[in-house]
């Protein structure tokens, strides 16, 4: 719309300019014509005046024969023809005037010849003939023709003058009205443009306001959702805590009374043994009682059953403890401190030195970037990963565990790689799940370590991944922010 208005305004301006130029040119032409008419009229008057002057000089010479008048006559007669030429030239453009001019020329030439004859007679002192010539002349048509043609020509020029003046006036009026109309149109277009601009700027302001509102809404929504998520997370933490806590209570009873049962069983079988011996006529039992036959089998079955119960309880207790520890870890407040990463890892390595020697493993710590993070969490992360590295080496191959570090875009990237047994790619996700393990189950463990490590890394605002193939070793990559800010994740607690 605006472009349309602008181009319309431009078009109008161009049109006005072109027509102004054209009209001004036309006005100049018209004026030139008016001037031309005035010149022609002047020339007619000039010619007639010269004719009169020649006539009166001739007469004066006739009366007085004074050479002074002869000179005057000659001067006037000499000016008449050029004046006539001039007049003809001026009136060339008008056929009627051309005809008139021809008539005039004829009459003037006749008159001139009469003057010349008259003057000639006077020179020859033939005054009477001269007078006759002149008198005849006056009565001939030449004088009348000159007078009437001169009048006609004047009238014609007057008419032309009026006509041309009118045309010139009209042209000028047209020019000015075109200019005024164009200006008015330009003004109208400008007004329209201003209106449009104001309208569009108002629309833009409204859109901006709407966008601001939307942004505010979005922020509020995000905050709300974050709060919801946080609440849900807290809820889960509490749930896990309470469940694991309350599960422990019955477990204490099961374990307690199983132990009681075990003791009772011992008592019962001792009595059975004693009674059997008494029944077979032997002496009453003294010291250790040895069961035999079916009784021995029963006692062994009893002990086996209790053994399974107890080992299951122990396992369940370990699982519950693990969940409790995880939730407790989730509730712990993280404190960001400046950490000399290399020192931290070397301390871990020295506590694991015994296991490393036993497993024939060497641990190499390469230069590492220092970061700001939670010390305890980092210790747990690295000790779990290094411990895993030592634990799951390939048997018969000297182990080599390498810890590398680098920084990238505000993040520190740590790699813990080993040449151990490796992890099947299909298990890469599974190993991070709680209570899940992969590969040959020949080492003690609950399947908690990596789940715990990943939870810690996430709380520290980082990510972790594994790349590994069976039998070629594993590399665990941890990406942590160089300067972790407690406020962004601690609120998850």
């Amino acid at each position, binding site marked *: 719309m605006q472009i349309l208005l602008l181009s319309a305004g431009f078009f109008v301006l161009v049109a006005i300019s072109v027509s102004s130029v054209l009209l001004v040119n036309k006005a100049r032409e018209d004026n030139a014509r008016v001037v031309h008419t005035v010149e022609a009229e002047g020339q007619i008057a000039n010619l007639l005046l010269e004719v009169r002057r020649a006539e009166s000089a001739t007469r004066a010479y006739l009366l007085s024969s004074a050479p002074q008048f002869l000179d005057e006559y000659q001067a006037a007669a000499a000016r008449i023809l050029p004046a006539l030429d001039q007049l003809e030239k001026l009136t060339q453009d008008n056929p009627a005037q051309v005809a008139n001019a021809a008539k005039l020329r004829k009459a003037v030439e006749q008159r001139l010849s009469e003057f010349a004859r008259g003057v000639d007679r006077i020179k020859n002192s033939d005054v009477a003939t001269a007078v006759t010539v002149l008198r005849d002349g006056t009565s001939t048509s030449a004088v009348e023709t000159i007078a009437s043609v001169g009048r006609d020509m004047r009238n014609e020029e007057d008419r032309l003058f009026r006509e041309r003046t009118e045309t010139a006036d009209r042209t000028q009026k047209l020019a000015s009205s075109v200019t005024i109309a164009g200006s008015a149109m330009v003004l109208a277009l400008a007004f329209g443009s201003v209106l449009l601009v104001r309208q569009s700027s108002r629309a833009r302001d409204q859109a901006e306001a709407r966008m601001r509102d939307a942004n505010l809404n979005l922020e509020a929504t995000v905050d709300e959702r974050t709060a919801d998520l946080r609440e849900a997370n807290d809820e889960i933490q509490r749930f896990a805590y309470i469940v694991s*806590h309350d599960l*422990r209570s019955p477990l204490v009873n099961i374990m307690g009374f199983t*132990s*009681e049962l075990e003791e009772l069983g011992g008592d019962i079988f001792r009595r059975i043994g004693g009674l059997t011996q008494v029944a077979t006529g032997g002496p009453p039992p003294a010291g250790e009682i040895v069961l035999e036959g079916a009784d021995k089998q029963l006692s062994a079955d009893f002990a086996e059953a209790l053994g399974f119960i107890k080992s299951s309880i*122990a396992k369940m207790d370990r699982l519950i403890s693990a969940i409790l520890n995880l939730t407790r870890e989730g509730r712990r407040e993280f404190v960001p401190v400046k950490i000399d990463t290399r020192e931290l890892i070397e301390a871990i390595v020295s506590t694991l030195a015994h296991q490393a020697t036993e497993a024939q493993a060497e641990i190499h710590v390469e230069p590492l970037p220092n970061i700001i993070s939670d010390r305890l969490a980092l210790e747990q992360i690295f000790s779990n990963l290094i411990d895993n590295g030592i634990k799951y080496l390939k048997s018969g191959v000297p182990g080599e565990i390498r810890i590398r570090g680098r920084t990238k875009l505000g993040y520190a990237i740590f790699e813990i790689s080993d040449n151990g047994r490796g992890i099947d790619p299909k298990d890469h996700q599974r190993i991070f799940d709680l209570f899940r393990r992969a590969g040959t189950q020949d080492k003690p463990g609950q399947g908690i370590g990596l789940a715990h490590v990943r939870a810690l890394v996430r709380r520290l605002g980082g990510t972790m991944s594994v790349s590994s193939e069976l039998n070629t070793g594993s590399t665990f990559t941890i990406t942590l922010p160089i300067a972790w800010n407690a406020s962004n994740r601690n609120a998850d607690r």
Partner: protein
Amino acid sequence: MTLPVTIIMIEDDEGHARLIERNIRRSGVNNEIIAFPNGTDAMKHLFGADGSGLAQKGNSLLILLDLNLPDMTGIDILKQIKENKYLKASPVVVLTTTDDSQEIKRCYELGCNVYITKPVNYENFANAIRQLGLFFSVIQVPPAAS
């Protein structure tokens, strides 16, 4: 045992109560044990009908307290006992499944004398209770008077 000390056991889990009592007896402690399965009954007994604790004036008490009770938290009971002028001298032994260090710290801050975690490992549990019995036999429990 010469001291006329009454053991008040506040424990909602009957099994736990039985195991505790059995192990106390095994350690040779023969004092009267009064068991309460919830906090309300225990509070009524300790503080009397008027809630002043005057009823226990002059009695020597030793309180075994579980923190997880169905009707109130053991922490509340501990706090009220230690704020009552007749009862605050009575030793309180907190028995619970929680080994949360924050909770242990809080109990000691409130004036608990001993904190025992009920381990699933029965041997440890029995040992802890038996040691508690020895502890009972050597400490001088002051009467809840003055």
